């Protein structure tokens, strides 16, 4: 198993993190990648923002 995940894999894991509990190995790989990748850190923030935006959208009516 390669240690470093690609951005594509990490974006998938970040998304799945919104839908299921990630395993310990997955979290480790994720955090290792995020440590060195600003693009994926931004993506992570942005999918949390999208979730919040949907909630706000409903509240606005």
């Amino acid at each position, binding site marked *: 198993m390669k240690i470093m995940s*690609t*951005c594509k894999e990490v974006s998938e894991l970040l998304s799945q993190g919104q839908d299921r509990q990630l395993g310990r190995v997955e979290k480790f790989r994720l955090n290792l990648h995020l440590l060195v990748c600003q693009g994926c850190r931004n*993506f992570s923030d942005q999918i949390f923002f999208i979730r919040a935006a949907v909630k706000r959208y409903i*509240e606005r*009516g």
Partner: protein
Amino acid sequence: MAEDTPASAPDGNELAQFRSYLMRYALLQLRDQTAADLGEAALVDALFVKNGHWTRPPASWGSPDQSFENSRFWEAFEMCSKLMPEKTARVFVMREVMDRTTEEICKEMNITATHCWVILHRARLSLRSCLDIHWFGTSR
């Protein structure tokens, strides 16, 4: 609270409204469904290069929560939500609006958990890219 004042907490009616909103656009899109599906796959392809790196790494959105106060943000948000293919919109609404678990969605849509995660991921990628281009403007 006056009856015509929107309540701050979402009630069943508002959820149904959002759902019917997305469904309506999803239905309008049906005739262009093949195009929408192809577009979705093409988007994912376009976002990453062969070695799995971002074609264009996501740039920071700064303090995006400030956009909540701007009605034009919500116009962009609505426009971007309409771009999802029908099935994607359906799954996304079940997850993000109706707060269903992946298991429940799989059962109702008769799809595997893996397929469900792929659909939700595509929905987020598409919404993210669209907001990036049309609102946050970091892709220009």
